[in-house]
């Protein structure tokens, strides 16, 4: 028990120290790297709290994908320029705001300490009703059955987000291909990696989605792995992202949510409610939705990383 406590204490101290360090970091690059490490530590915390699903998502989306985006943004700005040179606010106001943040954080911590113990939870209710969803992983049960509408809307949010990124292009560039990823095709080892790794990555992704029905895993984690593989291929110059006007790519983008909505609407007649599943069909239907959503989410995540379109011939200049 004491060793577990020691691990937790070290973890907490590390996270707290890293958070402070990110705020004190002098350069955008440093802060972005710190943020990725922070996400990994946070995932360990989720593992310690026995929330493996959350830990997987945190690693894939929080640390991996967001970190990649931040590093890309830092690379486009002056990566090594000091924040001080950019002219952020003065020392006095920064100190004042930091002080207020600290007071709010302490207040929140105090409130969390007086929350009821043991915490009221829906977990027993979820377990009692899990059989009706046909899946064995309670997280998947909540996401795909009990709170299916939230999952549907969450995947839908990705579309305006992608449109928002695409809208940052200029008018003549519309119809081009996404152009924010670096072109590292001259990098031999990377090319090799991009040829060797994806088959394994795809297997891992399929595994994550498949076991998600019974064990930790699921479409978001699987989609993140798929997206990472795809981006690796794109960066290595072994493939090209589709044009923003590509009908095939758009079809794949909306496939998952469309299947979800379609099955949800059918539920009104077949199972008595919107987003309900007929009991004997629940598991296959959920797996079908998860499979379709995995493809759509992976494509959206990859396209979010790939950025706004640029007309042919434009884009990020190849690095030496």
């Amino acid at each position, binding site marked *: 028990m004491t060793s577990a406590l020691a691990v937790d204490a070290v973890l907490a101290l590390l996270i707290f120290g890293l958070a402070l360090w990110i705020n004190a970091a002098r350069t955008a690059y440093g802060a972005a790297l710190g943020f990725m490490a922070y996400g990994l530590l946070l995932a360990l915390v989720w593992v310690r709290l026995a929330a493996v699903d959350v830990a997987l998502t945190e690693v894939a989306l929080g640390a991996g994908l967001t970190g990649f985006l931040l590093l890309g943004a830092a690379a486009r700005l002056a990566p090594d320029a000091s924040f001080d040179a950019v002219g952020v606010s003065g020392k006095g106001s920064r100190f004042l705001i930091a002080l207020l943040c600290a007071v*709010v954080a302490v207040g929140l911590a105090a409130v969390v300490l007086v929350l009821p113990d043991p915490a009221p939870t829906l977990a027993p209710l979820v377990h009692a*009703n899990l059989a009706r969803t046909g899946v064995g992983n309670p997280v998947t049960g909540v996401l795909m059955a009990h709170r299916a509408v939230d999952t549907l809307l969450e995947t839908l949010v990705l*579309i*305006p987000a992608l*449109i928002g990124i695409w809208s940052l292009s200029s008018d003549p560039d519309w119809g081009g291909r996404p152009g924010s990823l670096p072109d590292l095709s001259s990098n031999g080892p990377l090319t090799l990696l991009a040829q060797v790794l994806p088959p394994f990555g795809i297997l891992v992704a399929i595994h994550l989605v498949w076991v998600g029905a019974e064990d930790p895993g699921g479409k978001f984690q699987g989609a993140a792995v798929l997206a990472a593989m795809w981006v690796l291929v794109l960066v290595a110059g072994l493939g090209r992202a589709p044009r923003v006007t590509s009908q095939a790519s758009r079809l794949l983008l909306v496939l998952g949510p469309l299947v979800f909505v379609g099955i949800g609407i059918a539920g009104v007649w077949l199972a008595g*409610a919107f987003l309900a599943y007929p009991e004997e069909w629940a598991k296959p239907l959920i797996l079908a939705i998860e499979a379709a959503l995995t493809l759509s989410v992976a494509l959206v995540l990859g396209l979010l990383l790939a950025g706004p379109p640029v007309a042919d011939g434009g884009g990020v200049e190849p690095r030496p």
Partner: protein
Amino acid sequence: MEASAIPTAWLAGLSAPGGVLLVVPLILPVVGLLLGLLLGGRRLGPFVFVLLSAGLAAAVVVAAAVVTGGEPMLYQLGGWSPPLGVALKADGLSVVLLLTSAVVTLGVAVYAQRDFRPPGARETRGSLAFWMLLLGVWAGLNTVALGQDLFTLFVALELLTFSAVPLVSLDGRAETLAAALRYLLFALLGSVLYLLGAVLLYGAYGTLDIGLLAVQIAAAHALPPSVLAAAALMTVGLMAKTALVPLHLWLPPAHAGAPPAASAILSALVVKGSFFLLLRIWFDLIPGLLDLPAAQALGVLGAAAILLGNLMALQQARLKLLVAYSTVAQIGYLFLIFPLAGTTSGPTWALSAGTLQVVSHALAKGSLFLAAGLIAKALGHDRIRDLAGVGRVLPITLLASGVAGLSLVGIQPSGGYLVKAALQGAAEAGGTWWWGLVLDAGGLLTAAYLLWFIGHALSGHGPHPATAKAPGRAQELVALALALGSLLLGLLPAQVFELISVGRVPPPEPIATAWAGAFHWGSLAAGLLPLLVVAVLVLAFGPWGGRRRPGPLGWPAVGAAGLGSAVGWLDARLRCWPVAGFSLLALVLTLGVGFAFGARACVT
């Protein structure tokens, strides 16, 4: 409800399917977003128009079902009942938001057919983005209206924010991108605060369903710290998204470069979505907050917004920014209802008045932004001082601006007048006359800047503007129709507004009592007299372009100039990042501590 004139059997038939009706407004925009991406190109605009017409019909059917049923409609998604599942609910408030967003979005969709149609056969960036984002905003608003679960509502807020932000920068210029980024970052801060509050409530009660939470919170002897902290966090987060002073740093720049159709949606609807959630939290989730002294703080911020926004609008050189600052002020009216809605003092129709302000302002401001867009397009600029001759070129547009202005000022019989009359009534009955004073001052200032703009547009001085591009007749008529809608709200039978209180327990006092005798010639004259004085003052002392007086105008002008620059300085300070961040945190702390002390005083 006077239903004798309406075929009641038909209406009863409409409500027969029951709660599943609520699914229609929820999924229409969702399906639209998905199919719209496949459709793309030139057909996207007409497709969105058809979809929105269907959406308006669906909203009307839901409204009719709620009215004939006389009670809220409920629907359990997936057949799972809360706390495990997620429920949808349509009460009076939901119906009002559903109808308002359908009407205004449809109006904007008609207006935008011309602006956002690809010129050739190929799809363009602006047209795809605009129509898809419009559908996204609509999806977010309908979910906000029907959602009954704090997390579903969070997702709805995200949908709203992520769709609204890129609308700001459709134009693609660097300054609009900066404005969009500013909006995004601040709105996300608001989201985080809202989510923190929702998590605290889940930690305390193990459910996110508003109905179940409200029962448990009301049963407690005193509001526990977790609920008070959650209320403070969520309130401030939503205030940031609603752009209440001093958290309005993103709103004026966002409007400065946004296309007119986007501005209309942003000002008329998007900020109302987050305000609507505030209503849910303060009136449905934790009504005990209204009786705490901290509720006064929201009113004070509202009053500050009215004064600051109107004074800033008065000194804008550009029409678009004048209208934007007018929104800052009109948002202030929404927050006056919190101090006026306490159950211990005075009448309880403030919520109805606030809801009516949501509708009235949505119609009037939608119209005004569209009109401002038409003027800017015809002239190639929107400098107020150089608007001379617009009245001759765009008479319908100017008429729309004038009519919308009547409602913003609050002249009878407009919707704005009803809001003012109801809030004044609540303030007087509760013995808090000073809120009425704020309302009066706000109305006079609004009149002053609208006269300033319309006066310039009507003046015949200056050359006849060469219209580069004549506006579409449909575009002008949409602006006029929205403005007339706002004006005619006041002519609806008072009973119609009792729709707002369907599902409220205990039922609030009928708002019709607030308006008993509100309409008569005497009050019209009493309301118009100060406006006439303002008109004379504007005419006499305004620095009109044609006959600018040489020399100083004496102390009023010096005083006005001093006040103007002081207000401008204050506004500029409030809208820089460090100050806004400071305000955000300070408000969280103030409200949290204020709630805590108030709750303790209530118990002892």
